[in-house]
């Protein structure tokens, strides 16, 4: 401290000191009262505001406590046992002609082919066991929408990498076979008919799924075996499908997915086919011998009655015994980087006896590009099959197709798709007609199917 400051300090002290001693007791008391009043007033203020602030805070705290406890309940719900999810497709389609496939395409606009709704209920039985049932109602099944259980099983997860399911499951023929009814899960209006029209769709049995990585690649292997198989087609009414099993592996790395699958189905029973061509007794006997079955005349010809002493039959049927095994081997490759995607899928149908159909092969390739909420896509396919040994007049058949489509995302759970499917280059019977097993050629040179479909998941 330098001299100047010390001097000022001393002067101030001398000035201030006397003023303290100059105050009388009464004045000091007055001053104290004033301060006391001030403190009281401040205290009041302090106590008043916390009360109003407190009220708000208390209310908020209460509200938050309630929310937390509700969420905790939701959380302690590993115990949230029940979940419900659904999907739905409403689609209108029109073809140029009557194409009697399982999709009911014909030359009038109809909603029957592709419209369907599904509900799935998942219930957690325990930490590692769950039960699932998925009911699907399709308008194409009957005139009335009937709900069928597509999936109904109990599953148990034994380890992180292995899970077993027992019950009704879908047959995993191809890449999208298991989610066949969920329009929102694939890019087209329906999975390409060149490939995805199979006679059987689900099985009652069990499957085991293994998940494991090899380096950066993730794999899922599924092995399954059926006790009984569920068929979609009337054509298999008198045929038992048994001994159904398969194995597949799906490997994925970044945007790439590769899937290899094999499915084996055994058929046993009788197949009855009606024919509308003219035939004589010798002809009937000939077919019966060749196929090992029985050929019976149902209606003698009204016009041609007797020629050279033989009667002519104009409507007849052939009943043959079926005992065959079909193996479906398929390969699927998919690349999807979020914007551009391509899918190539091929299947080989191999029949041991080639009785009611011959060996077959189908290939489909698809390309698509996502622009914001619009996704145009294009696909081309070819399907071929060999003649069937037991069906008289059966020839090689083949068919090509291409399709052009546009998908527009309406919101994050609904989309609308516009698709034009053009089928051409029909060789032999194209497999479309209800009477496809009849000998002869199809009338059509080509066919078009136009569809608008709205898919939703909820």
């Amino acid at each position, binding site marked *: 401290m330098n001299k100047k400051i010390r001097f000022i300090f001393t002067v101030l002290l001398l000035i201030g000191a006397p003023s303290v001693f100059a105050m009388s007791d009464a004045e000091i008391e007055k001053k104290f009262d004033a301060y006391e009043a001030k403190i009281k007033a401040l205290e009041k203020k302090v106590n008043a505001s916390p009360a109003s602030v407190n009220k708000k805070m208390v209310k908020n705290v209460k509200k938050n406590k309630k929310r937390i406890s509700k*969420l905790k309940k939701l959380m302690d719900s590993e115990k949230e046992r029940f979940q419900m999810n659904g999907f739905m497709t409403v689609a209108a389609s029109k073809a140029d002609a009557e194409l009697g496939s399982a999709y009911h395409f014909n030359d009038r606009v109809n909603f029957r082919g592709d419209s369907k709704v599904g509900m*799935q209920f*998942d219930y957690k039985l325990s930490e590692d066991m769950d039960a699932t049932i998925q009911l699907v109602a399709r308008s194409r099944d009957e005139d009335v929408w009937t709900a069928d259980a597509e999936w109904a099983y109990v599953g148990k997860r034994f380890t992180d990498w292995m899970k077993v*399911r027992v019950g009704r499951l879908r047959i995993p023929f191809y890449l999208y076979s298991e*989610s066949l009814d*969920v329009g929102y899960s694939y890019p087209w209006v329906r999975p390409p008919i060149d490939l995805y029209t199979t006679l059987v769709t689900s099985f009652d049995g069990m499957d085991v799924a293994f998940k494991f990585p090899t380096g950066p690649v993730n794999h899922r292997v599924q092995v399954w075996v059926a006790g009984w198989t569920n068929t979609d087609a009337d054509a298999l009414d008198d045929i038992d499908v048994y001994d159904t099993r398969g194995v597949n592996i799906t490997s994925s790395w970044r945007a790439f997915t590769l899937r290899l699958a094999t499915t084996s189905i055994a058929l046993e029973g009788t197949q009855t086919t009606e024919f509308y061509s003219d035939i004589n007794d010798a002809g009937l006997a000939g077919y019966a011998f060749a196929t090992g079955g029985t050929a019976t005349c149902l209606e003698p010809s009204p016009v041609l009655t007797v020629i050279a002493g033989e009667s002519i039959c104009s409507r007849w049927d052939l009943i043959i015994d079926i005992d065959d095994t079909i193996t479906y081997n398929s390969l699927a490759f998919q690349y999807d980087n*979020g914007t551009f995607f391509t899918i190539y899928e091929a299947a080989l149908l191999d029949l041991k006896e080639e009785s009611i159909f011959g060996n077959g092969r189908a290939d489909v390739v698809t390309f698509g590009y996502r622009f914001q*909420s619009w996704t145009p896509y294009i696909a081309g396919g070819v399907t071929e099959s060999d003649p069937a040994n037991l069906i008289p007049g059966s020839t090689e058949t083949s068919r090509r197709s291409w399709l052009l489509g546009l998908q527009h995302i309406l919101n*994050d759970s609904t989309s609308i798709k516009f698709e034009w499917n053009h089928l051409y280059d029909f060789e032999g019977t194209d497999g479309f007609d209800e009477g496809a097993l009849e000998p002869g050629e199809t009338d059509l040179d080509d066919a078009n199917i136009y569809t608008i479909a709205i898919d939703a998941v909820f």
Partner: protein
Amino acid sequence: MKKSMFIYALFLSLFIYSGFVAAEVKIVAHPSLKDASLTKEVAAKLFLGKVSNFPSGTKAIPIDQETGEEARDEFYQKVTNKTAAQLKSYWSRLIFTGQALPNKRVLDDDEVMELIIANPNLVGYVSGDMDTTGAKVLFSMP
């Protein structure tokens, strides 16, 4: 004069740049978790239902925010490169073929934080500017 102007400009640009570098999405978990961080690939796998454990072996329960929340859309776009519709399509395939069930859902950033702090198996995402005190940040991405 010129030298100091340059330095000033440099600092100014760094300051502005740092504003844009602020993380836009963060993954948070309970502080007791053994893992120190997650890579983008592992994070994507956890939230897409492809793996159910953290790399350290602890069971992981991912929680999502409600559809429509900005943090949710940002997270999935940045970490998994999927839009909301693609995500829905992806999940619909898994749900309806019985392979997985969707993640638990909560309302927003605040609820994610409340639950993360209370449960050591949960993992969730919040917006970059959310206060994450009390939780461990496993991943952040601008």
